[in-house]
């Protein structure tokens, strides 16, 4: 039972992360489309931001693993 609740928690964490990274990716694409010359900088910052969000999501997953 704790296992399935943990899985639920992990899934919920992934939803949030998915939305977050999706937003970042989309905005980054828009930004690149608007300013193709700044592609490198945008990509770096996109990856950093995505990594930070991912970190938050991973916390959730680790907690889910711990609860498993």
């Amino acid at each position, binding site marked *: 039972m704790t296992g399935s609740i943990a899985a639920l928690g992990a899934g919920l964490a992934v939803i949030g992360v998915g939305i977050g990274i999706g937003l970042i990716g989309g905005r980054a694409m828009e930004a690149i489309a608007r300013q193709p010359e700044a592609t490198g900088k945008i990509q770096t910052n996109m990856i*950093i931001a995505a990594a930070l969000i991912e970190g938050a999501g991973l916390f959730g997953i680790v907690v889910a693993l711990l609860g498993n």
Partner: protein
Amino acid sequence: MASPAVLASEEAHSADEHAAEARVHAAEHSDEHAANATEEKEAFNPAEVIMHHIADSHGWHIFDWNDHPVSIPLPVILYTEKGLVVFSSSEFHHDQEGTHVVEAGGQRFVNIHEKIYYASDVANDHGVFAEMDHETHEVANATPWDISITKNVAALLFSAVVILLLFLPAARSYKKNPNAAPKGVAGFVEPLVVFVRDDIAKNNIGPHYKRFVPMLLTMFFFIWINNLLGLVPFFPGGANVTGNIAVTMVLAIVTFVVTNVNGNKHYWGHILWMPGLPVAVKPLLAIVEFIGIFTKPFSLMIRLFANITAGHIIVLSLVSLVFIFETVWVSPAAVLLTLFISVLELLVAALQAYIFTLLTALYIGAAMHEEHH
């Protein structure tokens, strides 16, 4: 004792080493459950197999031969109350349930789920030489300090050798013909080194980046090579080194120490007494910022661990599809999906090495930032 998985996997034998491994573990686990004599023909449990793979182990399992696991025995090194004790992991005879006692250095040890305990004098009802805590279902026996060369340690040492073999000749070629265009390994290494130096160190740390470059380079290549070797499905790759939290913890601690040792007074000022805020808020923010010192490297640790472990889990899950559905007809899909994910993991291997190093550089840069806001 053949489990369905074993039968189903005869044709898929050469598909993937993971597949072979999965089969072994399936066999092992069905063995163990049969020994308990509570269930017959236990269904294949992918979660157990996968967890077993991504965890560390004494002895490096390579493949199976006639349903007998063939593995490389590794030295078990224990620091006990009576000093160092060393013996081969093969002395456990693949036992992970604590039923086989090894006597060494005048002491007795058992291996329970790859963790080594001092053995109890007599076996319990299940033939296990250990006492179980009835409430937590954990082994109550004492443990020696275990500094064995486990599978992950062996893989770690192997990758260290690979790294040295990669970079020392490259460095030598520079010495041999200075000011010439890089050739061979040096030509492969140089753009990466320059990338780490310029795009990671210089851009994020600032003017005093030079003394951090060796550390960042070592970090980057250590993580990257280990990630890549972890993706190699057969010996001596395939170990889950960077997907082990102990490894990522050490790397994160390096980041933590380097960041805070190099923190200047602005950095500490911003943490302990944030300027430009009402006094009432300052202590509150100090607490938050203080926790932040630890969460940053902690997230580094978790990120690398979770990404690499997740990659291994996905690959193994896809391979396990064959055994879950108990038919070979799934194997084309399984192999294709595994291939796809493996290629993705190649990207992730480089990306995670990049992110770890980049964020380390960013944290160091923030700690050394001189300007006033």
